[in-house]
């Protein structure tokens, strides 16, 4: 389909604001007499707070308030950034207090200070005396589940938060019919989002006794609800403002510090208080990715058809639920759109441990699942002596497939073309041929992996989105959305959609980037790769309503029926010929000032999307392994995506670059580490946590296979999280190809590669 602005690499609408420093982030706002908040964190992984003495801290000059468990509402609340569920049995797990009387991980917030400045606040923290009674620290899911282990949360036997899985088809029958069975175990690591802007918020009470919170969040409307719940106050008393945000990747799809910030301002009579986490705090007391252990067992015909798959998974959710109860489920559902596997039994266990809290992180359970699945498929190919690409092709799902559990229907798929394109880009055949007989200390290999995902959360979650457009006197428009720009480029994409519908150049579409729950239409926010697809529907609907109103108004002005009219190049034109009828600006001016018919044009829509669209893609990677040092070098890497229509190719490419780089870190170097005895964090800083630098990132090849998704506005599907899904297994499969050694544990860092190669007799 031919569009004018959709599909063009127009510059980001916030590019200039960001590169000139005019874009304001939370820390750039100043309030008069702003105080500073700081958190006292538990040094123990599991301990009861027996007694806290805050006397000395309170006496320190410059200290305005000291808060403990006694000073905050005794209301357990859930932090996960999900839409509220009217059905109590589907509501998020409420297991958190603003300040706790039982520390559940090293770093758990047991007290807080509000003071004139940071140094005074830090000094005050040192003056708080806490008496702890240490409990056994449960630092692995195995330890947490063993008989007789203490309960981290009293209402969860065996420390299991959730074990909801699914089965489809008849697995016993599949196992009986199999020619071969292949089993495998795969393990992923704890990683952290490492978004550029740390978690930060500030709050004050306004003249109407309402709590105003300015915060770096992906989900302002949800934060409003959670703060209301946590404080036990009407939700309307909370106003949340989201300025520019420097990344979140899911760590800000959660109410990590807003309830505490609100409690802090209440403790000082409504004076503004800023809570600004350091990187070290951010890495242990916001969110991290769940580490998973998988056991897979597959039934196969001898020519590689998958008849059935049994997947057991253990997910380590850490000290509090956050998103834990839904992540194993999400990981178990989104991969089902890739291969036609008639029988699957999925048995996940999500387990509480005394480690930092795991939550939403780009891919939401799928990077773990795609890693295990695509390692497993590779192992199957090896065992059956089949070509790893052919075995995938043989099992791919076709258009028209309806998932028996979600009822989501595949209406577009470019997965086959993605595979072909990736294969050609990396010159698979020629290189494979060249690497057949390798000698020496450096070995090269090729690997690939595929994925399916989703666009939003339907049917599990509500997918509501809102957009509002105002036509200005000069024929330009303002666009307000509830969906949040957090760096991914959604503001630009929405502006392109509006420009497309209204026949406007980009500079005539003014996006209000800030979300304010008092002013912005309702939308649940940036997560689940939902905004271009889900919020895009609302934006298009709002733009179409504006267009209809403009054409109607023009009808009144010109007597030409609206159905004969169109908008193009800032004019109202004849639809059949494009001949200009009247400049849009003239129409717009009349909507404001015509003495008889004036009625400024606005639209304010909401859209409840009860559909989902499945994006696909692949990674192809070529690596070189230094057998002597255990170092893995990525020589070439390509991600090829089917995300439906690509609204902005340059930004989409950027999104893929970021995702692949995240996937490379996941594959090779990133891992949060804790002392195995005490649970103390070892590397919660960017020196010791090995986030790849740009020097470690190879040139990333990006290509798209554009399909047209009928349910998406302009044919779009999601692209937010997908780029991070398949790099890690592709790299692992390439290393397997290079060395013959299967690495089934992430990350494949030099120490681990050394140990494995040594075991394999290669060192």
């Amino acid at each position, binding site marked *: 389909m031919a569009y004018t602005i959709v599909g063009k690499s127009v510059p980001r609408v916030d590019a200039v604001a960001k590169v000139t420093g005019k874009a304001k982030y939370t820390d750039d706002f100043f309030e008069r007499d702003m105080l500073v908040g700081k958190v006292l964190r538990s040094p123990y992984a599991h301990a009861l707070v027996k007694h806290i003495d805050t006397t000395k801290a309170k006496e320190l000059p410059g200290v305005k308030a000291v808060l403990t468990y006694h000073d905050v509402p005794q209301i357990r609340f859930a932090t996960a950034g999900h839409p509220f569920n009217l059905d109590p049995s589907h509501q998020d797990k409420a297991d958190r207090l603003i300040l706790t009387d039982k520390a559940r991980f090293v770093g758990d917030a047991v007290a807080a200070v509000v003071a004139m*400045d*940071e*140094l005074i606040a*830090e000094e005050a923290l040192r003056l708080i005396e806490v008496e702890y009674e240490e409990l056994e620290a449960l630092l692995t899911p195995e330890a947490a589940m063993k008989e007789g282990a203490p309960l981290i949360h009293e209402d969860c036997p065996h420390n299991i938060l959730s074990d909801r899985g699914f089965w489809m088809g008849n697995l016993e029958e599949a196992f009986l019919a199999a020619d071969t069975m292949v089993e495998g175990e795969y393990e992923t690591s704890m990683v952290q989002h490492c978004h550029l802007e740390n978690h930060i918020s500030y709050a004050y009470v306004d003249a109407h006794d309402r709590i105003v919170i300015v915060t770096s969040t992906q989900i302002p409307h949800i934060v409003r609800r959670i703060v209301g719940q946590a404080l036990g106050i009407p939700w309307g008393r909370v106003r949340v403002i989201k300025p520019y945000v420097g990344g979140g990747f899911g760590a800000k799809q959660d109410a990590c510090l807003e309830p505490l910030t609100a409690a802090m301002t209440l403790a000082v009579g409504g004076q503004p208080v800023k809570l600004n986490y350091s990187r070290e705090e951010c890495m242990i007391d916001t969110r991290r990715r769940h580490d998973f252990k998988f056991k897979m067992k597959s039934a196969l015909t001898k020519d590689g058809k998958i008849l059935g798959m049994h997947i057991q998974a253990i997910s380590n959710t850490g000290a509090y639920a956050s998103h834990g109860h839904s992540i194993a489920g999400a990981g178990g559902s989104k991969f089902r759109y890739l291969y036609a596997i008639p029988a699957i039994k999925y048995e996940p266990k999500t387990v509480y441990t005394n480690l930092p809290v795991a939550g939403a992180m780009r891919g939401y359970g799928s990077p773990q699942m795609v890693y295990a699945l695509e390692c497993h498929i590779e192992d199957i190919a090896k065992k059956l002596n089949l070509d790893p690409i052919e075995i995938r092709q043989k099992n791919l799902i076709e258009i028209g497939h309806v998932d028996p559990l979600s009822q989501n229907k595949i209406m577009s798929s470019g997965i086959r073309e993605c595979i072909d394109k990736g294969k050609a880009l990396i010159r698979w055949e020629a290189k494979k041929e060249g690497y057949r007989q390798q000698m020496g200390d450096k070995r090269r290999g090729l690997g690939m992996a595929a994925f399916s995902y989703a666009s939003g959360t339907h049917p599990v979650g509500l997918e509501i989105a809102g957009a509002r457009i105002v036509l200005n006197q000069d024929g330009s428009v303002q666009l307000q959305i509830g969906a949040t720009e957090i760096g991914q480029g959604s503001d630009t994409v929405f502006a392109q959609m509006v420009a497309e519908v209204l026949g406007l150049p980009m500079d005539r579409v003014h996006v209000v980037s800030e979300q304010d729950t008092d002013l912005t239409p309702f939308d649940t926010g940036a997560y689940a790769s939902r905004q271009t697809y889900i919020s895009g529907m609302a934006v298009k609907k709002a733009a179409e309503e504006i267009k209809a109103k403009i054409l109607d108004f023009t009808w009144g002005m010109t007597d030409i029926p609206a159905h004969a009219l169109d908008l193009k190049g800032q004019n109202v034109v004849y639809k059949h010929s494009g001949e200009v009828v009247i400049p849009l600006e003239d129409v717009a001016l009349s909507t404001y000032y015509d003495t008889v018919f004036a009625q400024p044009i606005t639209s304010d829509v909401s859209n409840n999307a009860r559909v989902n669209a499945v994006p696909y893609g692949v990674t192809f990677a070529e690596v070189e392994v230094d057998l*002597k*040092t*255990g170092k893995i070098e990525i020589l070439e890497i390509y991600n090829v995506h089917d995300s439906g229509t690509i609204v902005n190719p340059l930004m989409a490419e950027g999104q893929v670059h970021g995702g692949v780089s995240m996937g490379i870190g996941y594959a090779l*170097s990133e891992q949060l*580490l804790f002392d195995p005895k005490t649970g103390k964090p*070892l*590397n919660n800083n*960017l*020196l*010791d946590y*090995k986030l*790849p*630098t*740009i*020097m*470690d990132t190879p040139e990333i090849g990006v290509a798209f296979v554009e399909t047209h998704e009928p349910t998406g506005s302009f044919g779009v599907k999601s692209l937010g999280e997908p780029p991070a899904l398949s790099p890690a297994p592709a790299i692992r499969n390439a290393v397997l190809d290079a060395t013959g050694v299967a690495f089934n544990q992430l990350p494949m*860092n*030099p*120490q681990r590669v*050394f*140990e494995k190669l040594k075991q394999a007799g290669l*060192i």
Partner: protein
Amino acid sequence: MYDIQDYQEALTLSEAAETLARNPRMRIIAGGTDLLIKLHGGQIEAAELLSIRKIEALSHIEKMPDGAIGIGPLATFTQITQDPVIKTDIPILAEAAVSMGGPQIRNIATIGGNVCNGATSADSASSLLALEAELTLISSRGTRVLPISEFYLGPGKVDLRAGELLTEIRILPQHYVGFGGHYIKFAMRKAMDIATLGVAVLCKLETGNILAEVKIGLGVAGPTPLRCLEAEAYAAGKVISMDVLNEVGRLAIRSAKARTSWRASKEYREHLIQELVPRALREAIVQAGGGEIA
């Protein structure tokens, strides 16, 4: 917010020495890239700082008439990377310098701070050790000159006495003229990382494919940067071969005091020494005018 209680700037060496003599709590700050991290991490509290950044006499890099190369402690890593004398005469130090941090850090971090901070991972240290650098230390009491091998006392501990200031790092001609060298920084990342192992090797050749002299400095192979004297003694006078190189690697482990930490195991660290010392020596031989070894 940093816990800085006092901050002063010295304009001359004598002013700096006097200020330090007057107030023993005063700490020297150069680029601040180690010091501020420590303040941030709480290892230093209530800091009283004396900046030496305005002392112009401390940022020189020059070759004296006798061939000695003098490097002022305030020379930044960027300066070292780009300096013609260093690039020509002791390129191994330029290699080490460019492996350090990232461009922004190299612009501000000084070689004096790198040495005085006393970290075993300091990227300049293993090269300076192999180059047998001499340190000039000045205080209100006078001047000392110390070989760098005696400067390192323990992890983060150097022989910098109260009120003392490092004023020059000097490399004598007999320690670099005729040598070829190579530095390998083995780290988990290609930038912005501390070394898992730093290997600096210098060598001088004799006709007949003979190793006249080999000097090996290692970083992160023990609590301080160290030399591998046993391996060096073995190498002297040997005809170059892969076997000799491997034996040098094996013997280098004996000088190391590697230990297991969550960053890397002892076994892996020693394996890296054995593997990377010969790799660095191979390249050093080429730099010294020898041939590639098959």
